């Protein structure tokens, strides 16, 4: 089954017959090359056509997709997007939708970007979502969305991760966090740690996950000492901060980092070695 068929199957179990019939009719029109106005109208009308079912959680799973934040309405809107033919006209229609999208449309569009056959052609939508000050939109791109890891360059990726740290949006729910980590990001986050220290404000401890692996490399190589001071402080204060520091130091590329971990947090070593302490549960 392709993505459109998968969504159709889920929606057929969650929508009342008239709503499903309406949605499928709209999808068929779009597949047949309906004018752009038909797409805008159908996309905008999804909440009112779906009724109460629209806002319910989707509660569906598929390999490679993390749909935990999705609602039925967003799945229905993704279905409409996937009904657009893979043509330059469809790219233009999606960019036009982005220009006038209301908040709900905007979130649905951003969540569904990764499913589109012309995903790369609508990079602009994803890049703008990183710049958005609307939390819903920023989270839609940064959280549980495979699009950034696949299509962002390092500038966009690093801005996204740094903005998560800035705004207390979790990092663990960013897809591809470790795979896309890079030395420039590590340097940015280390600078941020120093700025926060100067301001007397804490830094989200997850940030160290993206810093420690690069402490022996490039722009971060001569700053290991700086980083270890922060990490030693976290370890000394115990709790979730210490567990996060230990998880980060587990991947330390140099002897000094590994030594700090063994010396300052011996009690955490067994759970680290057993793999029972993870970035998923360090703060529980």
């Amino acid at each position: 089954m392709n993505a459109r068929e998968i969504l159709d199957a889920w929606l057929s179990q969650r929508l009342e017959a008239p709503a499903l019939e309406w949605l499928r009719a709209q999808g068929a029109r779009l597949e047949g090359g309906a004018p752009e106005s038909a797409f805008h109208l159908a996309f905008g009308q999804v909440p009112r056509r779906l009724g109460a079912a629209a806002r319910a959680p989707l509660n569906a799973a598929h390999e490679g997709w993390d749909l935990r934040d999705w609602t039925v309405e967003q799945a229905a809107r993704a279905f409409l997007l996937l009904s657009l033919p893979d043509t330059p006209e469809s790219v233009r229609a999606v960019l036009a939708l982005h220009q006038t999208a209301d908040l709900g449309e905007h979130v649905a569009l951003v969540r569904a970007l990764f499913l589109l056959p012309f995903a790369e052609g609508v990079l602009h939508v994803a890049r703008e979502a990183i710049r958005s000050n609307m939390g819903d939109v920023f989270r839609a791109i940064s959280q549980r969305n495979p699009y950034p890891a696949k299509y962002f360059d390092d500038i966009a990726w690093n801005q996204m991760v740094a903005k998560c740290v800035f705004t207390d949006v979790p990092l663990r729910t960013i897809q591809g966090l470790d795979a896309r980590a890079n030395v420039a990001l590590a340097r940015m986050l280390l600078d941020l740690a120093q700025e926060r220290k100067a301001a007397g404000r804490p830094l989200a401890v997850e940030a160290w996950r993206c810093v420690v692996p690069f402490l022996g490399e490039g722009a971060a190589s001569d700053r290991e000492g700086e980083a270890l001071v922060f990490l030693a402080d976290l370890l000394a204060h115990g709790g979730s901060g210490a567990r996060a520091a230990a998880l980060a130091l587990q991947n330390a590329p140099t002897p000094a980092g590994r030594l700090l971990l063994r010396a300052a947090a011996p009690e955490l070593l067994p759970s680290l070695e057993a793999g029972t302490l993870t970035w998923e549960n360090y703060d529980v």
Partner: protein
Amino acid sequence: MSDNTPLRYIDPHIHMVSRTTDDYQGMREAGVVAVIEPAFWVGQPRTTAGTFLDYFSSLLGWERFRASQFGIRHYCTMGLNSKEANNEALAEEVLDLLPRFIGKEGVVAVGEIGYDEITPAEDKAFRAQLELAKETGLPVMIHTPHRDKKRGTTLSMDVCIEHGIDPSMVVIDHNNEETCKEVLDRGFWCAFTIYPTTKMGSERMVKLIKQYGPERIIVDSSADWGISDPLAVPKTAKLMLEQGVPREHVELACYRNALAIYGKSGQMNEADWLDVAQVDNSKVFEGNSILRGGTLGDPRVNPLVSKLIPN
């Protein structure tokens, strides 16, 4: 329900794009749970359709989000205002944009439309938009003129009838003692804008509701970029209660009537603000996580709906 329970209010006419976050906080504290922001002019005349496009989008996007930060549900109306309808070439382009917005979530009426100077160009745009309202089954919000108000009000109603629009689907706004009897007698909804010194004061509003009763009466602030009061609805309600207007009447004029008429759009339901948790599960998830981060320090803001990104 005890009579001491604080009333909830809807301000069904307010231009929040021109207001500050202090206003939002004050409104929430005063009991305003929902607002309707009519598309209107923005002071500076617009010269291109693109600025209308971005303005309409901001009513559905950024402003809706901003209101949500303060626990206030934000709805809007879409339309070309009468003043700018006089730029005829531009008006044509803007009228062509409206179908792209009119069907979106939370659009509760076509408005605010009607007359300003009562010119042929205004008449043309007004009639075109009445047809749009008829096609989409949406209520209509009518702005009545400052100058030549009585004639403009009567004419607005005549034209609605001529286009076959049911008076029960139309709110006539900015009424005063001189216009309200005809509006009510003809079956239209009759809204009053409480403006310091110009349109209508709270004291006069109390007298009007005592005289005419609460049926189809709506109180709003029309607060914008000029001297105006975003707390006009709760303040007027308080004065009504102090001066012996029955609580049920106050609730009709300052909450229920607006919900009744604009709810006919199918886009505005009491459940939208009575049970935020059911509105959008992802919002609660996000709110909780902000709460955990603890960076949003303002206790006046409902933590469950706060997702402001501090830069």
